[in-house]
């Protein structure tokens, strides 16, 4: 076995193999940066080329690609507040405030080094685990899965923000939004309004973009400045690198979390990163800066999301069961090259198994090296006037959203949820809590039903369940004891009981939505409605409490309006709806001209009107966006939304 480990490494270091690994890694970095594209899109780009090729060449390329999408997704997360993949959502929480403070390079340095350590750790454990992982995975039955999901859900307790009631209510909203689509027990459609689009539920990528990218974008546009509030980029990449090393235990703990969660089929980096973040909040005493630009808030999720791949490979290789969406494509790729993963993979293809592990480790090093090298120059983006960057960001996130299901509804869903996210940010409703609820919703519903169906109540007698139950209790205890860091209550601060109308309207709309959910639930059979109904009723209790507390005439944490935080002389001229209207403009332009041509019109107009560029550079900017989308459409075989123009006339590529 040991000689095989060494042979695997030597094989990879020959020029041809290394070139394939390198090419895959570079491609992975590119698709990771683009929001909405990730391992799935990248790997499907490779699939046409892998067929019938030598597995020892193709495998490093595919693994290289998979390994680093969660590395480069940090660029947009930290610099723009846009999660590049769903594994980067938690990174936004502290990464983006760091960029706003002018410390983007430091944040990136820390994130990339944490990614690398996590990734190599994942590869290492994967190697060590190949003989012990089987019984371990087989020990996790339906009951244990349920407990793991509940444990993940308790992390919400650390992320509720200033008002615990509002945070928990948002988790409820996330659970409700996540329950849209076919009920696991009966296949009945919940809250789908009889559309095909909602029968699969709302795509995660859209919820992620709506919760983070859109609200941040609107805020900076209103501020009318650069992303970085200081004109100088502070201390750089190296400092971040050292900080990661200083927090080595945090890195290792979070890597272990990423690996374990990744190894559970169905749970992936969209869950593990939040658990890692919650774990950080639980285990640290000084939470003052968490959520406002704490470097550890970047290190924790980034260590987890790269270790995730090592974990996800375990069920993929050993059981032939994909540990994540991109692993499903990887599995398809393996079948195409004639490698049959599953029981006995290690006996049949031990050499290839080690090749995969080495590729994973090396790709992490290559990917991180490249990103670290680029961090400082790319961080300069935060010094450019945001009005110049914004139109490109808007078209890119809408591009990303459309890749979710290639439907016009993707664009509308992003817009509607984007408005929700914006008001949640303004009125202090926790967006991480919503996301955690959202990603866990269907899994929770399914796991409760499946555990009860298989075991009845006796699943509580299983050892694994009891151990996890203990952890859940500890986690809830920690959350209950936590005192979030929050501003003092003053009669003129953001928590003041002045001009409450906008907040109360928002609260009212939420209550109305939950009211509708009750109505919808009563059409369903018991098994399909028990979950959404429980969630809805509990959330309505929380919302009712929030409403009562809000009605009192004194400052309270349940009240919050960030509009009161603008300094008197710096209040923006334009309200947030002004910029939402501008975002809507892209949807309008797309409806008329189709996405590619609409993008040209939109970017050029935005640059001309909002950034006050001359027409010529504005048009050049639009052209740049068109070229980008044309290239993407050609190489990734992507399709773009069509407009009225396309239905009237046949347009030449790429405008069709």
């Amino acid at each position, binding site marked *: 076995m040991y000689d095989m480990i060494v042979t695997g490494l030597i094989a990879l270091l020959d020029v041809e193999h290394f070139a394939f690994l390198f090419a895959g890694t570079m491609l992975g970095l590119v698709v990771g940066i683009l929001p909405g594209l990730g391992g799935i899109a990248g790997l*499907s780009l490779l*699939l046409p080329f892998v067929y019938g090729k030598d597995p020892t060449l193709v495998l490093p390329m595919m693994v290289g690609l998979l390994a680093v999408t969660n590395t480069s997704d940090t660029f947009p997360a930290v610099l723009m507040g846009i999660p590049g993949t769903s594994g980067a959502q938690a990174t936004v929480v502290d990464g983006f405030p760091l960029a706003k403070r002018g410390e983007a390079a430091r944040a990136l340095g820390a994130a990339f080094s944490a990614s690398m350590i996590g990734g190599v750790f994942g590869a290492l454990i994967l190697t060590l685990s190949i003989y012990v992982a089987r019984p371990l995975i087989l020990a996790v039955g339906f009951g244990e899965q349920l407990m793991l999901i509940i444990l993940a859900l308790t992390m919400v307790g650390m992320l509720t923000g200033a008002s615990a009631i509002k945070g928990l209510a948002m988790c409820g909203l996330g659970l409700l939004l996540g329950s849209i689509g076919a009920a696991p027990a009966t296949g009945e459609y919940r809250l789908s309004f009889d559309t*095909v*689009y909602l029968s699969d539920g709302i795509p995660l990528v859209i919820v992620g973009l709506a919760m983070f990218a859109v609200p941040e974008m609107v805020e900076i546009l209103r501020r009318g400045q650069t992303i970085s509030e200081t004109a100088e980029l502070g201390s750089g990449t190296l400092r971040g690198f050292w900080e990661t090393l200083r927090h080595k235990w945090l890195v290792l703990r979070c890597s272990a979390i990423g690996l374990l969660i990744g190894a559970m089929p169905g749970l992936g980096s969209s869950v593990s990163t939040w658990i890692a973040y919650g774990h950080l909040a639980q285990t640290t005493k000084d939470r003052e800066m968490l959520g406002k630009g704490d470097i550890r808030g970047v290190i924790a999720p980034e260590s987890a999301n790269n270790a995730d791949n090592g974990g996800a490979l375990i069920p993929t290789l050993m059981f032939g069961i*994909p540990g994540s969406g991109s692993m499903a494509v990887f599995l*398809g790729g393996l079948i195409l090259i004639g490698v049959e993963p599953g*029981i006995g993979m290690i006996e049949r293809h031990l050499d290839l198994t080690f090749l995969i592990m080495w590729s994973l480790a090396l790709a992490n090093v290559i990917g991180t090296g490249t990103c670290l090298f680029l961090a400082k120059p790319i961080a300069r983006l935060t010094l450019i006037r945001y009005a110049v960057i914004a139109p490109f960001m808007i078209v890119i996130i809408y591009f990303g959203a459309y890749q979710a*299901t290639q439907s016009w509804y993707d664009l509308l869903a992003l817009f509607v949820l984007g408005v929700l996210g914006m008001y949640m940010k303004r009125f202090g409703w926790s967006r991480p809590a919503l996301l955690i609820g959202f990603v866990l919703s269907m899994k929770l519903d399914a796991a409760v039903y*499946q555990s009860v169906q298989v075991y009845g109540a006796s699943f509580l007698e299983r050892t694994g369940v009891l151990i996890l139950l203990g952890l859940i209790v500890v986690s809830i205890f920690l959350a209950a004891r936590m005192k979030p860091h929050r501003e003092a209550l003053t009669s003129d601060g953001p928590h003041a009981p002045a001009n409450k109308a906008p907040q109360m309207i928002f609260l009212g709309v939420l209550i109305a939505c939950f009211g509708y959910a009750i109505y919808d639930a009563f059409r369903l059979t018991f098994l399909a409605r028990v979950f959404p109904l429980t969630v809805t009723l509990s959330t309505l209790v929380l919302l009712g409490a929030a409403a009562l507390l809000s009605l009192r005439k004194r400052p309270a944490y349940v009240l919050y309006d960030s509009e009161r935080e603008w300094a008197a002389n710096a209040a923006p001229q334009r309200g947030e709806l002004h910029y939402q209207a501008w975002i809507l403009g892209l949807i309008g332009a797309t409806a008329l001209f189709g996405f590619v041509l609409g993008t040209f019109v939109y970017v050029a107009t935005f640059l001309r009107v909002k950034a006050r560029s001359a027409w010529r550079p504005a048009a050049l900017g639009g052209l740049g966006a068109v070229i980008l989308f044309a290239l993407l459409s050609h190489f990734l075989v992507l399709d773009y939304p069509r407009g009225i123009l396309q239905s009237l006339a046949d347009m030449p590529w790429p405008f069709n």
Partner: protein
Amino acid sequence: MDKVMSFRIAACVGMTCAIAGLPAAEAIAQKVDFAGKRVEAIVPFQPGGGSDVYIRALAPHLERHLPGNPTIIVRNVPGGGSIPGANQFQSRAKPDGLNVIVVSASTVSNFVFQKSKVQYDLDKWQPVLLSPQGAVLYAASGLGVKGAQEIAKLKGQRLVFGGGGPTGAEMRFTIAFELLGLDVKYVWGVQRGPTRLAFERGEFNINYDTTPAYKKNASQLVKAGKAVPLFTLGIQDEKGNIVRDPNFPDLPTFTEVYERMHGKKPSGPGYEAWKAVMQMNVMASKSIFLPTDTPRPVVEAWRAAARNALKDPEFEKLAASIVEGYPQFVGEAARPIIKEATTLSPAVQDWLRTFLKTKHDVTY
């Protein structure tokens, strides 16, 4: 008079044109040429899934045998049980031979059961190739059954079976259990791979896998003495009889098991319902279609390419495992199967409706 004349002239001109048109059509037949073109294959599923792997493995061989050797590119339009992808193909695909769609069992069963959301005319599309895919049922050895001959021993035992949902691909087994009179507890919302994991953990004690997954994984469990194969669904031969699965000639089919259990040939709406569902999920497992109005010569060019690709030794070497030794149906041969899978008699529909309502509390 004038009018009649002009009519006659028009008729003459028309006739001449029609006659002149005949050789023209012939010429088109010879001139089908995709040189330098890109063929777009719509896969209404995620990349990496069964349908995706199917077309990607076939594509290079089809490319080699299509006139002009076009490049086939795959475009995945995932989600919605393949309804959105198929709807999109219906509304957008031009009948020029440069647009094909990969159809799977769920595209077919949604066509039957989700009529309100379906906007595609699956039964009118032009079939190119249809590839069946069998499945094997196996039970935990702890149940004390050594094989299909002892299947009666399962009666009265508490069987736990998991899968996607009561109206999905599992129906080919749930109906079979019903017809055999087995007492099964169903656990839904579990994907195919994880059901095998749950079987290995002992949480489920009866499970199935499609042929490739069975050969790769479940057969190892059989070897280790943890599982016992019971029966296959069999496949349908050209005469419409259900015969043993060529991959598992030693395993009886469900039909045989039914006969042994009840001492008579299966019949009645319940069995007809099972057969329709079996057509959807086994016989029409994977297929390739061209749009409805694709000109005859173009359709024939595709069918010839499929026929030749399957015979190609190169295909044998690289991709034979994709079709797993099942008989392949090229062109019109596929049509009766699609027709049987998509036209359910009222009696069968009633039976299914009652079955789903009483056993699974699902209304369709």
